[in-house]
Every structure is written in structure tokens, then in C-alpha cells.
């Protein structure tokens, strides 16, 4: 629901902004007339940037753009969600400046973009740890990666098989237009999801459902389960994950674990632009990658860009 409200609010803000744009255009016209008359000389016009896509990223990008807009009053950034696939489709159709995506673009999508005269460039601006969440009342603290995969494939269907109560497991996941859905399937499940998995319409809905369901388990971006102080929201338990049978269980709540790769389920968060970004879009991305931007990312419960990915950004020539 959070993302829904965000979407609606953002769309509302969008149309307001468009109104503003029209107004500004008129304003520019009037100013032009006035300056032709030789009376007024003033800088006018504002830049508007559209970003669209991943529901995992929507709150984060919103926060980053708020801070950026405060520093650059002449820039307005509209952030909408809808899922990574939706954002990428919008980039291909030239309906957005930046596509937020929690997965890399597929070859098919890149081909389509090129056919359409769009040259997608990938920027990695943050790292996300995927948390596995269960209801607080469930007495399971940690799981091995292998067990997680079996649970989501439907091969383990009762909590008692893994040391819990005698309860049918209810699975919560995202819908197929979600980058998280695709990533989790490729990186953890490595097979088809169980047909019984409920497909929720956004990350916030998974959190809401698991809160209500004592037998529920779901995968969500870590930013959705911690509050401003970095504490887990009430009603939810974040599972520790064990990579192999003999390694210790690791919690994603400690940022070090994700940064060093000790916590096994993490992924880069992308922003795609059409061609190497220029102008204000470039400035915005530079801000995201700056120490200040990366600090905001940490405060929101996500993790900074790894050194390797930062190097990739540097090679694009966006940052020094």
C-alpha cells in the first residue's frame, strides 16, 4: 500500500509539475517578450526528470531526489514505481529519463531498446540485501539457503519439517513484473516457484501479509523492514541465513555482512538512462554516488555501492 500511495501521490505531483511546466513555459514566453522590450533579464525555466520502475527503489530514489531538489531548486524529479519491468518498458518507449531497476536488463529488452533508438546505460547506485521475513510468532530463527529454495519451490510445505510448529507454510512473493521476483528465483530458488505462492502487488503488501499470517514467509528488500533507527518493524522477524550447512547463520541487519558478501542474498540496484547521462540527470546520479548520497542510502536501510560496482560507474565517465 505504501508504494500505492507513493505512486498515486507521485502521479499527482507529476500532473501538478506538468501544470507548473506549462505555467513556466508561459512564464518564459512572457519573460522573453519583456526582455525583448529591453526591460527585464532573468534566468528562467526548470528541468524536470522522470524516474520510473522498481518498487524496491521507489522510496529510496524519492528520498535521494528530495535532498537533491532542495539543493537544486530549479530541478524537479518525479519518482514512480510499478516494478522494474515497467520502468524498463518506459525507458524503451522513451517515457522516462531514468528507469529504476532491481535487475539487469535482459538481452531481449536491450535489443528492443536499440531498435527503438534508445541506448541503455547501466548505473549501479546502491546495493540491496534481500531479507527473508516471517511472522514474529514463528519460532524459526535461521535457515540454510538450500532450505529456503526448497520452501519456495514447494518441496517443504510444513514448518514442522524444519523445526517449527505443525503449520502449512504460506509463501508470499512478488509478481512476475518485479525485478525482485526474477532475482530471487535466479539467485536462490533456482527453479520455478511453487504454484501456491501468493503473488503480492508490491513489497509493502508482502510485509503487511506476513505480519498477519503466522505461517507466512516472504522475501523483501531490507529497506522495507527497518525503520528510521535501523530497527526491525514490529510483528516481523528477519531470518538469519546460512550459506552452507557448516557455516554460521548471518543476519542482513548488520551492514558489514552485506558489504563483505557474508550475507548471501544481495544484489546491485540499477538505474538505466538513455545514453551516458548529461546535464541535470548526470548531476543527480553524481549526487547519488557522492558520499552524501551513499550516506542517505545507508540511512534508508540499503547498502552503499560495492567498490567493484563503483569502478564500473567510474569507467562510464560519470564520476571521477
Amino acid at each position, binding site marked *: 500500500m505504501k508504494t500505492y500511495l507513493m505512486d498515486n501521490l507521485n502521479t499527482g505531483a507529476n500532473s501538478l509539475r506538468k501544470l507548473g511546466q506549462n505555467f513556466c513555459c508561459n512564464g518564459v514566453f512572457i519573460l522573453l517578450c519583456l526582455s525583448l522590450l529591453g526591460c527585464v533579464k532573468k534566468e528562467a525555466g526548470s528541468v524536470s526528470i522522470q524516474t520510473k520502475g522498481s518498487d524496491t527503489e521507489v522510496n529510496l530514489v524519492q528520498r535521494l531526489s528530495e535532498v537533491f531538489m532542495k539543493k537544486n531548486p530549479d530541478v524537479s524529479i518525479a519518482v514512480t514505481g510499478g516494478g522494474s519491468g515497467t520502468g524498463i*518498458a518506459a525507458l524503451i518507449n522513451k517515457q522516462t529519463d531514468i528507469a529504476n531497476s532491481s535487475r539487469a536488463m535482459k538481452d531481449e529488452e536491450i535489443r*528492443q531498446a536499440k531498435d527503438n533508438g534508445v541506448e541503455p546505460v547501466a548505473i549501479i547506485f546502491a546495493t540491496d540485501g534481500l531479507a527473508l521475513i516471517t511472522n514474529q510468532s514463528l519460532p524459526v530463527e535461521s535457515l540454510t539457503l538450500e532450505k529456503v529454495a526448497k520452501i519456495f519451490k514447494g518441496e517443504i510445505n510444513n514448518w514442522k519439517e524444519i523445526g517449527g510448529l505443525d503449520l502449512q507454510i*504460506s509463501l508470499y512473493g512478488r509478481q512476475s513484473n518485479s525485478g525482485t521476483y526474477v532475482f530471487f528465483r535466479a539467485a536462490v530458488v533456482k527453479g520455478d516457484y511453487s*504454484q501456491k505462492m*501468493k503473488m503480492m*502487488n508490491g513489497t509493502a*503488501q508482502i510485509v503487511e501479509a506476513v505480519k498477519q499470517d503466522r505461517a507466512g514467509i516472504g522475501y523483501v528488500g531490507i529497506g522495507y523492514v527497518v525503520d528510521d533507527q535501523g530497527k526491525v518493524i514490529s510483528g516481523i522477524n528477519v531470518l538469519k541465513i546460512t550459506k552452507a550447512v557448516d557455516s554460521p547463520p548471518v543476519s542482513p541487519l548488520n551492514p558489514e555482512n552485506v558489504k563483505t558478501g557474508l550475507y548471501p542474498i544481495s544484489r546491485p540496484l540499477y538505474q538505466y538512462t538513455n545514453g551516458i547521462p548529461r546535464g541535470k540527470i548526470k548531476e543527480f546520479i553524481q549526487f547519488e554516488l557522492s558520499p552524501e548520497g551513499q550516506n542517505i542510502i545507508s540511512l534508508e536501510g540499503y547498502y552503499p555501492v560495492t567498490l567493484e560496482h563503483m569502478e564500473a560507474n567510474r569507467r562510464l565517465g560519470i564520476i571521477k
Partner: protein
Amino acid sequence: MNFKKIREKGVYLFFFLTGISVVVLLTGIFLMLFFNGLKTFRDVRFIDFFFGTIWNPSAYGEPSYGILSMVVSTFMVTLGAMLIAIPLGIGTAAYIADIASPKIRETLKPIIEILAGIPSVAIGFLGIVLLGPLVARTFGLSSGLNALNGSILLAVMSLPTIISVSEDAIRAVPRDYKEASYALGASRWTTLVRVTLPAAFSGIVASVMLGIGRAIGETMTVLMATGNAIAMPHGFFDSVRTITATIAIELGEVPYGTAHYYALFAIGAVLFLMSFGVNLVAELVTAKYREGKV
């Protein structure tokens, strides 16, 4: 004189065009759905499409395009909604039209209209945070995101349609019918059930059909409140995934021109035929009833 004739012709042509525009639109939409949908069968076998139970076009392994569980889901939620909404709706309509005092009627009618104005997203949200948990607690389930939850919400959404159309139909029954019934010594209840409601039958059927149309085509609420699991449902406590929800989830990200893309048009055409069937039945029923009446 001549000018008047031309104007007459012009007016006639104008109204003729507006009259057939709906037919043109409808045919256009159907042909588009049908011809795009037909291309599905270049890659998918006819039998797998209609009788396969697994819909998973973006599968990890082999994609599958079976729509049976989706069709069953759509039928189930609609049926459940109507089981709740029809008695409740007709009862309310009869009360408002025939029994309530003018003051109560004038209060109830606008309230029902407000109910019709609640956005489906809001109703879906209520389904997640309020009704879903309630359903889960009442029936001892772990999760309330199932067909029953969706049915109740859809019933709420189709109630305003059913109530207002049936109420008009009941009020349109001539006074003479009722007075004749009273004159024969029938009680108020008998008159309502044996005279007024049967006389308003065709209008009531129309209202129910409109209600079914509302329920079958509703997207957002079921998308949010029924869990969307792709497995074939075995009862009202199972999660379901309707045709509308599938189209809404997948159409935004499907690569253009693939089998998956065309398959979405094909299920759109199936949905179209389903609601067309509902309307056809409604027409036949009301026509037959009118015939028998005269």
C-alpha cells in the same frame, strides 16, 4: 424547403452514426482481441491453452500457457460475489422501493451511491488489512487472501448497481397490481413476493447481470485481495488468480510480439466472450419472461 430537407437528412445521418458507433467500437475491440489472440496458437497448442491448468509464461524452465485455473478462479469469485450480493441487493431494493418511509429512502439512496464511488484500490486495501485477517480468524486459516475474501469485496462493489437498478424496476411496477392484490386480501409480504417482485423480474435480472459484469471485470480489488497464486483453486479458502489480475500484472512488462504477448490478448478475448455470454443469457431470460407475461 430544400434546405429543410437537407437538414433533416443531416440530422438523421448524425443520429444514425451515433447509434451505430457503439456497434463499431464493440466489433473493433473484439476483432483486435480475437486476431491478436489467434496468433498465440502459432506457438501454443489449442488444447494446452484451454485445458492446461498452469499459467506461467515467464517460467524458470519451460513456459506454460494453460488458462483453465484462471477461468475457474474468475467464475468462482464472481459466483461467490453473486451468492452474497443478489439476496442482499434485492432485499435492500425491495425495502427501499416498497417498504421504507420516504425519509428513510431519501437517506439510504445517497449512501448507496457513495458506496459506488469508493475506488477499487481502497476496497482492495481494506481486503488486505481488515477483511482478509477477519476471514482468516473466523475460519481458522493462516491467511485470508483467498477467493472468499475476493467474493465478499466484489459483492460490496456490485451491490450499488444491483440495488439501484432493481429499485427502479420495483418502483416501476404499476400501483394497480399491488392494489388489486391487497383488494383480494393478500398481506403486504405476499404482495411483495408474489406480485411486485415477479412483475419487476426483467429489471431485477438486468440488475443482476450488470452486477455480474461489474464483478467479472473488476481488476484492482481481486489483484490485491486474493493472493494471485497460480495453482488451481480447490475451494473458497484457496488463493485465486483471475483473468483480469493476470492481464493487469503481465501486460505492463511483456515483450512485444511474443507468444506471451498474444496469449494475453487471447485471455482478454476469453474474458470478453464470458461477459458476452452473461449478457446474452440475460437478454434471452428477460425476453422469454416478457413473452410468457403477455
